[in-house]
């Protein structure tokens, strides 16, 4: 399997402020790498550096097996890349078809204008100017244009921002199809559900550092606890004394326990309180893992191991 992306010890600082601090990443063909991080974590700088929009201070970048220096990216390489940036707009006065026609001319072996319109699902808006499209339609067109050259490596920076649920799920489907076709995808997103749905691997970026890497299930496993939810007559203090309980929280009647050994906790709970209702045991959601990773910098060492 071809290695689509390799990043070694990437550093970038702006006016003395470190934005990327020794980032290491790898991505193979046919995989989706999701870069997660809170606002200001360095996600867009990372993408911009990989694409050559800004130069790295140090470190190595290999795209589709070729080393990249500074901000120069060869035209041959750009033929094989697809990009959808977070701040991306097109000429407001050109129609959907015209934008597709223009973009398809850039690529030697890409989609035709009509195919791009269909890929965007905007056949009914062919003559509509970009400036008059809805936010979701604009995103769909930008996504289609990112695929104009049938790329081997695609960068998607917050691709579903502003999309409705239906359009978002359609785009997820397209990303899954790309993966099946052997395309490597680097995706940044705020939507953890999106990462969970699409990512083969997730890199959590926090203050310019990768604080955790792995598949969604590996990241969740890092938490080493499960969530027990129930309604019980026990007080918080009594619940906290149950075996393996790490944390107790309550929202009206619903109690949430974080437990290292959910089975032990549940058994003990049922022995003490036979009137427990609505009992359920869940693995940690990616959202909780993400919050935990980005709010506990000390966990960095633990996760990197």
């Amino acid at each position: 399997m071809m290695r689509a992306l390799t990043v070694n010890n990437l550093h970038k600082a702006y006016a003395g402020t470190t934005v990327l601090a020794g980032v290491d990443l790898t991505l193979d063909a046919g995989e989706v790498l999701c870069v997660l991080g809170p606002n200001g974590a360095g996600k867009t700088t990372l993408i911009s550096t990989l694409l050559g929009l800004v130069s790295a201070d140090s470190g190595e970048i290999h795209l589709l097996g070729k080393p990249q220096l500074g901000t120069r990216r060869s035209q041959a390489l750009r033929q094989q890349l697809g990009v959808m940036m977070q701040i991306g707009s097109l000429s407001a006065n050109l129609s959907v078809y015209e934008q597709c026609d223009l973009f398809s001319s850039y690529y030697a072996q890409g989609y035709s204008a009509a195919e791009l319109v269909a890929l965007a699902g905007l056949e009914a808006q062919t003559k509509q100017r970009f400036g008059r499209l809805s936010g979701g339609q604009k995103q769909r067109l930008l996504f289609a244009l990112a695929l104009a050259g049938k790329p081997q490596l695609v960068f998607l920076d917050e691709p579903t921002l502003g999309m409705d649920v239906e359009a978002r799920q359609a785009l997820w489907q397209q990303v899954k199809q790309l993966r099946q076709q052997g395309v490597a995808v680097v995706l940044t997103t705020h939507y953890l559900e999106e990462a969970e749905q699409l990512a083969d691997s997730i890199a959590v970026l926090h203050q310019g550092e990768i604080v955790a890497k792995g598949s969604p299930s590996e990241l969740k496993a890092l938490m080493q606890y499960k969530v027990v939810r129930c309604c019980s007559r026990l007080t918080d203090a009594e619940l906290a004394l149950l075996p393996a309980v790490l944390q107790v929280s309550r929202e009206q009647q619903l109690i949430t326990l974080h437990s290292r050994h959910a089975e032990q906790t549940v058994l003990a709970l049922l022995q003490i309180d036979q009137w427990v209702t609505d009992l359920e045991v869940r693995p940690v959601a990616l959202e909780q893992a993400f919050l935990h990773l980005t709010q506990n910098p000390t966990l960095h060492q633990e996760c990197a191991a």
Partner: protein
Amino acid sequence: MNTALIYRKEAWYDLISIWRTPGFVIPSLVFPIVFYLFFGVMFNRGGASVYMLVTYGCFGIMGPAMFNFAMNIASDRAHGWLTLKRLSPMPVPAYLLAKFITALMFSLVIIGLLFTLAALFAGVRLAASQWVLLAGILLLGTLPFALIGLILGLTLSDKAAPAVVNLVYLPMALLSGLWLPVNMLPALLQQASWIWPSYHLSQVGLKVIGMDQGYALWIHLSALTFSSLLLAMIAYWAFQRLGAAKA
């Protein structure tokens, strides 16, 4: 990849995109025509219509060149359109050349309208070679102003660009003698007129009809060449700076 096709499509789509912007098209075409109609046709005194054909011709071609580059490039930068293009395999010169061709097209239309007005309503009579030479000079003269626009577009925000272009365009037109002859300006401003490419362009044009200030042609051509080279270097620096800027 068909490079010629990319250049052609960039030029075509840039042109129709601008053409669909009435806020740009109407002032670009109307201002020089209305000014010429007013001062060159209605108040035509002692050969003023011939003189103003050249000076308003210069004024007319400067506007679209500066505004098209400055406002559209600043806007393309602000909205990520230029970034998207730079990341695609599109050759950057195709983007810049498209804007220049658009500016040339506007220049051609303005020259055509001014020449028609001058011939039909102001009684301007020139030899065929003079009409052709004058049109060629005005078309070529678009270059330094396009470069000024390019520099402004690469360095200013989309909100600041229109205001700054006006701040450059209108005083430059006045101080170059495009609205009234240079010798009617105060002495200090007459000397300062030499720094403007628009002054030298108008003098080259006025030489065709024998109404220039009498300096040697090579001085004006050298000044235009030098200013174009200098502006091109600054534009190149500004473009390189884009790559180093924070994304």
